[in-house]
C-alpha cells in the first residue's frame, strides 16, 4: 500500500520542496494542468503526492489522512496541541526559514527587552484602562512563551494578515509575527525585542503518528528514509 505525501500546493515552498526531494533522487511533479492539485512521484516506490495548503498540512497529519507532510515547524507547533505526540519530525529541510518574534514600535526607545515590555504593559494598563494588545496569528506559541517569561499584562488580538500594520492602525501596540529579513517590520516602524525569539521555524518533513502504517507502509517509510539519507524513523 502506498504512502501519501502532503506538500504545499503552490509558490516558493512547493518549489523548494520539489528541489529538496530531487536532490535526493525523488522527482516530484505536478500534473500537466497547473490548476489540478495532484502530482506524480518518480524514483520512490509507493509514494503518492497530495498537494495541500501548507496551513492544512498539520491538521491532515494529526488526523492521519496523510502519512508524510512538508510544512513549517511554526504551523505544526501552533496548530497541534502537544505536537510531538501527533507527529514525528523526520528532517529539517533547510529552507522556509522564519523567526517568530515580538516587535514593538521602533520609537519606543525605552523598550529593548521583555523586562521592559512587562513594565510598559503594566503602565499601559494603568494609563489606558485595558491591557496592551499584541496582534498575532500564533496564539498558542505567543501565550505559552509569555507565560514562561512571566509577562501578564497583555492581551492577544487576532490578526491573520498585514499584522505589522495593526500598530499604525491603533488596533494593537505590539505584534508577534514571523520575519525573515525584518524589512516589513522596518517599513512599518517596528523593531524586534531582545530575548523575544519565540521560535525559529523552517520547512520540515513530518510523519503522522496516527496514520495507518500497516500493510507494508512502515517498510516503505524505512526505505524512503534511507533513500533520503535520513535515520530510520521510530514512530
Amino acid at each position, binding site marked *: 500500500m502506498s504512502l501519501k505525501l502532503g506538500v504545499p500546493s503552490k509558490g516558493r515552498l512547493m518549489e523548494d520542496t520539489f528541489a529538496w526531494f530531487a536532490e535526493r533522487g525523488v522527482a516530484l511533479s505536478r500534473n500537466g494542468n497547473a490548476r489540478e492539485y495532484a502530482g506524480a512521484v518518480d524514483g520512490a516506490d509507493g509514494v503518492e503526492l497530495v498537494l495541500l495548503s501548507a496551513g492544512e498540512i498539520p491538521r491532515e497529519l494529526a488526523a492521519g489522512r496523510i502519512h508524510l507532510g512538508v510544512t513549517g515547524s511554526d504551523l505544526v507547533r501552533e496548530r497541534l*496541541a*502537544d505536537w510531538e*505526540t501527533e507527529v514525528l519530525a523526520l528532517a529539517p529541510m533547510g529552507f522556509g526559514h522564519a523567526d517568530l518574534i515580538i516587535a514593538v*514600535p*521602533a*520609537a*519606543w*526607545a*525605552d523598550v*529593548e527587552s521583555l*523586562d521592559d515590555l*512587562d*513594565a*510598559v504593559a*503594566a*503602565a*499601559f494598563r494603568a*494609563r*489606558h484602562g*485595558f*491591557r*496592551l494588545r499584541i496582534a498575532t496569528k500564533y*496564539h*498558542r506559541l505567543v*501565550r*505559552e512563551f*509569555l*507565560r*514562561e*517569561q*512571566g*509577562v*501578564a*499584562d*497583555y*492581551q*492577544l488580538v487576532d490578526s491573520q494578515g498585514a499584522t505589522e500594520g495593526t*500598530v*499604525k492602525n*491603533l488596533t494593537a*501596540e505590539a505584534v508577534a509575527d514571523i520575519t525573515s529579513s525584518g524589512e516589513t517590520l522596518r517599513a*512599518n*516602524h*517596528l523593531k524586534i525585542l531582545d530575548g523575544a525569539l519565540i521560535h525559529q521555524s523552517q520547512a520540515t518533513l513530518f510523519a503522522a503518528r496516527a496514520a495507518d502504517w500497516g500493510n507494508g507502509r512502515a517498510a516503505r517509510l524505512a526505505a524512503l528514509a534511507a533513500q533520503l539519507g535520513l535515520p530510520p524513523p521510530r514512530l
Partner: protein
Amino acid sequence: MATKAAARATGTRLLAAFRAAGAVEVEADILQPAEALLDLYGEDIRARAYVTADPLRGELMLRPDFTVPVVQAHMAHGADPARYCYLGEVFRAQEHRSARAPEYFQAGYEAFDRADPEAADAEVFALFSRLLAAVQLHAAIGDIGLLMDAVRGLDTLPARRAALLRTIWRPARFQALLARYAAPPTPSTSRAALLAGAVPRAHWVGLRSAADMAARIAALREDAAAPPLAAAEVAGLARLFAVSAPAPQALADLTALCAEIPAIAPAVARLDRRLAALAARGVDLARVTYQASHGLGTMEYYDGFVFSFTAARPDLPPVASGGRYDALTSVLGAGRSIPAVGGVIRPGLVADLEGQP
C-alpha cells in the same frame, strides 16, 4: 474516577453542610461575559477557559469558577455580612494531553465579613477541614499578604516595590526583578545613551504616547541612580519565602524573622490570632503545614490567607483550595470593597477518595 452522579451526590451533601453552617445558596450563569474574566486573569484565562461568542453579547466563557460571579452578585446587592454557598460544574480547557477533567463540580463557601478577618479565615478552613476529615488529605496554609508586607517594607524606590508587588504571583518574573534590583546589570550601549539623555528620534506609531515614554524614561533614570537593594534585605526575603514547617514551628520562625524584617510583624501577629482561632475550632495545627510561598503562581487575586487540601496521590489536583481576596472585591465592586475569604471543594475527587463508584 467517580461517576458524575456520585460527584453530584457528594456535592449535594457538602452544599447541605455549607447551608447548615449559615450560608445562603446562590446560582451563577454558566455563560459568563468574557470581559470581566479577561480583565481579572489576563490572557492566560483564554487558554484555560472555553471561549464562545454570540452576535449580541459578544465574547462569553463557560464559567471557569464561581468566585467572580458570586463577588459580582454580592457587590451588586449583597447583605453585609454574608455567607454564600454554591454547587455546580466549572469548565477548564486543557492545553495539553492529560487526565485532568475538562468539566467538574465545585462546591464552594464564601464569607464576606468585615468584623474579624482572622476569625473568618479560621471559620472557612475549619469547616473544610471538618467536611474533609473522612478522607486522608494534607493541609497547607500560607499568607500572601505577609509576603506583600515584606515587599512594602523594602528600603528602596516606591517604583521598585510596586513592580515587585505587581509580579508577586509570577515567581519567575519576581525573582528576575529582585535579582536586577540587587545587582543591576550593565546597561546596553543604547540603554546607557538613553539614561545619559539621548532619545533617538524615530517615526512615532501606535497608541502609547510620547508622554508615556517620557514618564518611563524618567523612571528608568531614577532607577539607575538609586542604590541597589541591600544584600541583607534580599537574603531576608529569601529566608522568608523558604519558611515551610508545621504551623506552630513556622509561627516561631516568622516571629524570629520579625527582627530582620520588621514590616511583617503585624501580619505575623494576625497569623498568631488566625492559628489560635483555628485551634479553638479544633484544628490540629501540628498537622497543618505553613508554607510561605503557598498560593504563588496560581491565581492572581489571593492577597491574604491561602490554603489547600491535597491527596497523597500526586496525579490528583488539590481536592480543596481557597483564600482571602480582599482586593478583588474592590476591583469588581466599582469603588466599594469588603474583606472576603472562601474556597471550593471538588466533590468528584472526594467521591474518588471515598472509593465511590
